[in-house]
Every structure is written in C-alpha cells, then in structure tokens.
C-alpha cells in the first residue's frame, strides 16, 4: 500500500495544529481555518485533495468539520493521524463548552454576547467563503462553473435535499472531468 502523501506531517504536529484550530474556530468556518493551515501554510496536502475531503465530509454523515479533520489526518498519516486530528479538534472545545455551561449556570447570560457572536459567525463564514472563492479561481473551462452553479442553486437557493442532488451531480461532474481530460 503506497502512501498517498509523503509523511511530512508528524503525528505530534497534526495534534498541535488541530488542537489550535479547534480552539480558534469561534463561530464556525472550520474548513477555512483548516485550508489555511494544511494547504496554504504547511503544504501538507494539495488543493484538489483537500477539496475532495470537503465534498466527502459534507456528503457523508457526521459533522462536516469533524469529517474533514478525520479525512486530513487519515490522508496524511492513516488511522493514527485521523484519531489525533479528531481528538485535537474536539477535545479542547469539549472541555471549554462544559466550562461555559458551568459559568452560564452560575452567572447567567452576558449582555451583548449574542450580538458579538452574530458578527463573529459572519466572519467565520467569510473564512469558508474564501476557500470556495480560491478554489473557484483555479477552475478551468466552462464545465466546473456549470457544476458549481447547479450545486449551489439546487441546494442553497432551491433548498433541495442534498443527497439526491449530489447523487446526480457528482457522477455527472466526474464524467465531465474525465471527458475534459481526454479531450485535452
């Protein structure tokens, strides 16, 4: 079994990176944080491999960000890498959230917290949007734009259920990629 990636990421580094990402990701947008650390800064993974993980993580059951962490860890270092990535992204926030619940039970709600969180959540989404825009800029030819547009309109605008949509769109998109490759 050949490794898909040279094992440049040590297990300790995977744990450290994902533990930091888990704690930094207030307001969501975790895929954006992971993209920045794993693809852009550390170059552990190619853009295409990362995007395949984004698609798989969303399509398969489970929390998207946890799925993506598992995928990255597994592609880099197999099962131990996956375990450490998932532990890193879940462990510290798990303790923080219990601490917050204790504080909430004791002191009640902080005024203005909801307002600030609304803004932070929008900034977190900007992080995700950035990943999408960067990936879109790399798309060559007309067909990837058509696939992205159909996916976005069907799921985001028309609110169609995701699974039937991707069951149609993914095979069509792979067929188009195959054709584009053989036409070139």
């Amino acid at each position, binding site marked *: 079994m050949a490794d898909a990636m040279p094992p440049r990421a040590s297990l300790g580094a995977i744990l450290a990176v994902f533990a930091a990402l888990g704690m930094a990701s207030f307001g969501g947008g975790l895929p954006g944080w992971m993209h920045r650390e794993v693809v852009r800064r550390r170059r552990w993974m190619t853009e295409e491999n990362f995007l*395949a993980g984004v698609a798989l993580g969303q399509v398969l059951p489970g929390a998207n960000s946890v799925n993506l962490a598992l995928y990255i860890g597994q592609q880099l270092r197999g099962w131990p890498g996956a375990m450490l990535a998932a532990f890193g992204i879940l462990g510290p926030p798990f303790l923080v*959230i219990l601490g917050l619940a204790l504080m909430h039970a004791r002191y009640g709600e902080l005024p203005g917290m909801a307002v600030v969180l609304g803004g932070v959540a929008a900034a977190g989404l900007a992080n995700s949007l950035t990943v999408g825009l960067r990936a879109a800029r790399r798309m060559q030819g007309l067909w990837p734009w058509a696939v992205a547009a159909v996916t976005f309109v069907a799921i985001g605008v028309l609110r169609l259920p995701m699974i039937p949509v991707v069951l149609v769109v993914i095979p069509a998109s792979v067929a188009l990629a195959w054709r584009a490759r053989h036409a070139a």
Partner: protein
Amino acid sequence: MPLDRLIALALVFAPLSVVSLGGGPSIFAEMQRQAVEVHGWLTDESFVALFAISRAAPGPGSLIAALVGWEAAGFAGALVAAVALYLPSSLVLLAVGQWWRRRGDSPARRVIERGLAPVAVGLIFAGVLTLMRAEGVGLPEWLTLVGCTAWLMRGASPYLVMAVVAAAYAGLFRIGAMGA
C-alpha cells in the same frame, strides 16, 4: 440509574450520528425532540440556552450533544453523548477515506478529484447562504461577510479579522447602535 441514563444517551445519539447528513444543523431538531419531549432530560428553555452556549464556544456546533449529555448525566453523560454522536459517522468516513487513500496518485483518482472540486465549491457557497439566511442575520452581518471575505482574500490573518469583528460589534453594542 446513571447507567440507564448513559445507555439512553448512547441510544439517542448514535442513530443521530449516521443520519446527520450535511452536519450538525440537520439533527438539532430531532436532538431537541428526543432530549426534551421524549426523555425529559431538560426543558425547552434550557435547550435554547445550551444552543446559545454551543455557539459561543469554539469548535464544531454539534458539541451541543456534550451539553445535553451533561444535563442528563454529568461528565460521563457528556462523554458518552459526544462519543455516540461522533464515532459511528467517523467510522463511515474513515472506511471511505481508507479506500480513497489506497488509490494513491492514480489517474482515476485525479479525475475524481477534479470532478469533486466544483461540487465542493457549490456546497461551500450553498452552506454559507443557508447559514446567512438563519434567524437574526441582517444587513450588518452581510456587510461583515463581504468585508471580511475581501480582507481575507488579500491574505489577512483570520485571527486578526475575527478579533477586529468581535471588537467592532462589542463597541457598536456598547454605544447602543446594535442589539436590543
């Protein structure tokens, strides 16, 4: 008694794990129904409070499961709920990922990756739009989204962007320009 609770928690969250297509938001409604109406672990009001706490905390929003477990059966309950929610779906993902990893750098894999990339782009945009249509999101949040995206695309650190946004919203709230 506590053991009964832990088993009940596992039986609620493990099935939710395998049906949580598209992530956390798809199962919040059923989680609320099970925890509040079926099992009576907490009241409707405290579920709403837990939801707010899970949004205020770092990490995935689905960690609200740990809070429900905490309310039902303390620390052990939080642990059981989190493991039950994440383990089954993780095993599915790892099985697919293992197969994927074995493809190595084959031409077939590269074609599939090129086909998945635009789907991922569409899913990312759709996810952002869905969350921006949630309750309580208004013009300020849309402006924040556009501004932050432009700033991040120019290479700004997301840590800096988040800190500036949090400070700006806190300031606007303070002077009474935002929030009730």
